[in-house]
């Protein structure tokens, strides 16, 4: 194997970026795989590359990513090889945009002296909603708010408190996503849903030294620990 780096990563005097598979191949470092190894499936049904086109008479190719386009009113989707779902060259683009607006369609332009396959190699998997593993579970808690509280406004004390509580829970190892809301039919009845890697992950959290308790928003007798 020669030491020629992938042309996509050539830069003046810079260290070769071995996150690119092509670079690894050329450097004889094929075994240096990014960790964790991305799934061959889209990390999220909501975010995927749905089109790669080279504009005619243009030096650029356009990569479109965004929400799953399977909805019947959406544009047709181009199926790409699994490696095209992840972007090693987009450290300055994809993570920033995806972290802030994971469901906002986005387009980016790459200089086309490199074919798209050169640019798109697994290195930075984006997993806002990982596919359900065999052990993944959703914690579901319902409780009734005390009469003095409501979730009628996102800025209400109850809304803020629940959001802070769930934000703290999301810091726990194995916690993925959290949702909450009040039932339309009974606005004083609240549901919280938290996705965990496993029941054990949730139980470890509940047994940890510090578990924030939901302040008394609920009717007497409620405790999230009992849910």
């Amino acid at each position, binding site marked *: 194997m020669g030491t020629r780096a992938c042309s996509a990563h050539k830069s003046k005097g810079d260290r070769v970026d071995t996150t690119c598979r092509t670079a690894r191949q050329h450097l004889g470092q094929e075994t240096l795989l990014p960790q964790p190894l991305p799934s061959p499936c889209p990390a999220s*049904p*909501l975010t995927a590359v749905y089109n790669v086109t080279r504009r005619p008479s243009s030096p650029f190719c356009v990569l479109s990513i965004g*929400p*799953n386009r399977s*909805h019947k009113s959406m544009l047709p989707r181009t199926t790409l090889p699994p490696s095209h779902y992840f972007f090693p060259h987009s450290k300055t683009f994809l993570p920033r945009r995806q972290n802030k607006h*994971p*469901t906002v369609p986005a387009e980016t332009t790459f200089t086309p002296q490199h074919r798209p396959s050169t640019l798109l190699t697994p290195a930075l998997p984006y997993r*806002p*909603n*990982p*596919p*359900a593993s065999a*052990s*993944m*579970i*959703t*914690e*579901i*808690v319902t409780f009734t708010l005390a009469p003095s509280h409501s979730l009628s406004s*996102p800025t209400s004390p109850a*809304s803020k408190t629940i*959001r802070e509580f*769930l*934000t703290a829970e*999301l810091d726990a190892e194995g916690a993925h*996503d*959290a*949702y*909450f*809301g*009040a*039932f*339309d*039919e*009974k606005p004083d*009845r609240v*549901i919280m*849903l938290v*996705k*965990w890697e496993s*029941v054990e992950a*949730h139980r470890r959290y509940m047994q940890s030294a510090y578990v924030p308790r939901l302040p008394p928003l609920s009717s007497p007798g409620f405790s999230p620990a009992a*849910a």
Partner: protein
Amino acid sequence: MHVPFAASPAPALGANPAVHATEVVFFYFPATLTPAQRADIMASVEKMRPVIEASDAMGVYDGWALEDDIVSPLDGGKAGEGDGGKAGEGEEGKEGEKCQVFVNLVGWASVDAHMRFQGSEAFGQNIHHLLGIKEMRGTELFHVKLARVGV
């Protein structure tokens, strides 16, 4: 309760921006439900599933809670607190009874979209698959616009 859905229910919870109402249904069954009875129940559920999926629903997710001692909020056979909750044909549930719970989450563009489906011929012709489950103590059905934390 902890529910292992077969696939991530995130789209029905609101991760899909087109979902503005999540239908949440809790089906309550006796804590003594056997695996064979559960299999029969799932066979009935599977007959209703394609009807829902063929509608305007945006994702159908269901699963059994891992716990078999969930305290039922149902009161003396009354259907659940939500709108549209219906009891099965079997013995009615009692408040405080320990239950196994089957959870169903469905994403809809709006509550009206769900109500239109409930008024459809397809729903009317097939809902008996669920309402005819004799082991069912009762149900609770709610709609909720969920907020995602951390985004």
